[in-house]
């Protein structure tokens, strides 16, 4: 089977139910940052929720980016590993360089309604085979390996909020 090149997309949802330290810190700091940045777009204090701001105030799509500044330091703490997604040996195995932060909902007066997502996009993988519900993949090497060379692989299962983001066609 000819291996296809794919990238994976993990959409990590973080909300008031966040229990792990990293998630809680991201939750708290993005809420604080949202409340700070929203003031620029809400100088008459007319609006309360992110949804209202998006609907009524031009330019508020920038809030995704502006609030993402609060996430920057936490992403660096991951050392390039996509969190939560484990291979069948129980190890993190996906590397990332790109992300996209989104505010799903928020409320300037009710922190419990704050909900954000961090979208992680994996570095390219070679998808060699599918075994039952598992995908057999390996990190895509910079150069094509020589014939007969051993390629180390990871076996993992697709799960909620994890998807194949892109297929790369071979030119």
């Amino acid at each position, binding site marked *: 089977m000819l291996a296809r090149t794919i990238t994976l997309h993990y959409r*990590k*949802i973080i*909300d008031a*139910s966040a*229990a*792990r*330290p*990293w*998630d809680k*810190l991201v939750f708290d*700091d993005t809420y*604080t*940052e949202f*409340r*700070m940045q929203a*003031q*620029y777009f809400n*100088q008459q204090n007319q609006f309360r929720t992110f949804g209202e701001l998006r609907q009524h105030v031009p330019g508020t*799509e*920038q809030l*995704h*980016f502006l609030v*993402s*500044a*609060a*996430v*920057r*330091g*936490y*992403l*660096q*703490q*991951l*050392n390039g590993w996509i969190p*939560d*997604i*484990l*291979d*069948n*040996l*129980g*190890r*993190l195995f996906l590397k990332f*360089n*790109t*992300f*996209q932060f989104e505010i799903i909902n928020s409320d300037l007066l009710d922190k419990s309604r704050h909900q954000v997502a961090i*979208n992680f*996009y994996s570095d390219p993988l070679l998808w060699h085979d599918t075994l039952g519900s598992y995908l057999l993949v390996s990190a895509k090497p910079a150069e094509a390996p020589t014939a007969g060379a051993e390629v180390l692989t990871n076996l993992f*299962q697709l*799960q*909620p*909020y994890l998807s194949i983001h892109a297929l790369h066609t071979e030119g």
Partner: protein
Amino acid sequence: MERKNFLKSLLVGAISTPAVLAACSKESDSVTPSGTTTTGTTGGTSTGSNSCTVAPTETEGPFPTKAPASYVRSDITDGRTGYKLTVNITVTNSSSSCAALAGALVDIWHCDAEGNYSEYGGSGMQSVNYASVHFLRGRQTTNANGLVSFTSIFPGWYSGRATHIHVHVYSASGTSLKVTQIAFPEGSGTALAAVGGYAKGMTGYTYNKSDNVFSDDTAGVEIATVTGNTTDGFTLAISLGVPA
């Protein structure tokens, strides 16, 4: 205790990832390692949906630390090239005889030498490299003299606007106190002339008197003092009075 909790939450969290993602934190007692406390987590019944996922067996860590430093930084260049510019902003309290305002948060942002801002491009839904996405943006807290200092590059310009730096001043608790912009002195011998608009040159440049933001500033209070040269870099200084 904190470490214990963290260890447990790491194990539990990773095991129950799909459940957590489904916004209903769950754990299974059977996978809680002995020796760690089993209380204090959010309750719920196991869905079993995660029973087929292998538990993490990794060295604990990395230990998350609170990172207000994510955005709080003095060097905001992030690899952008240009003539070095040190930005010194002194914040004073216009509600208190213009006394120095300590502990205020000062955000600045400006465009690069080509006139581009850091932002999500296009539809705003593109993924970006996390290491460089916030170039030429940063936050500092004023010291006892009301001063913040940033290391950056001399901004370029784009059509319709004079060269400028955006500033947003917040109180220590994050309440917006002032949103404003800093303008640059113009004319022969100024930094603006020495930089010459970088590669673009100055053809089509919008000067302060024609700028839709600065044109009403006849007294020039928004214009900073800028000294230095292209070899050693430039230093910008301005004082901003905000009602705190």
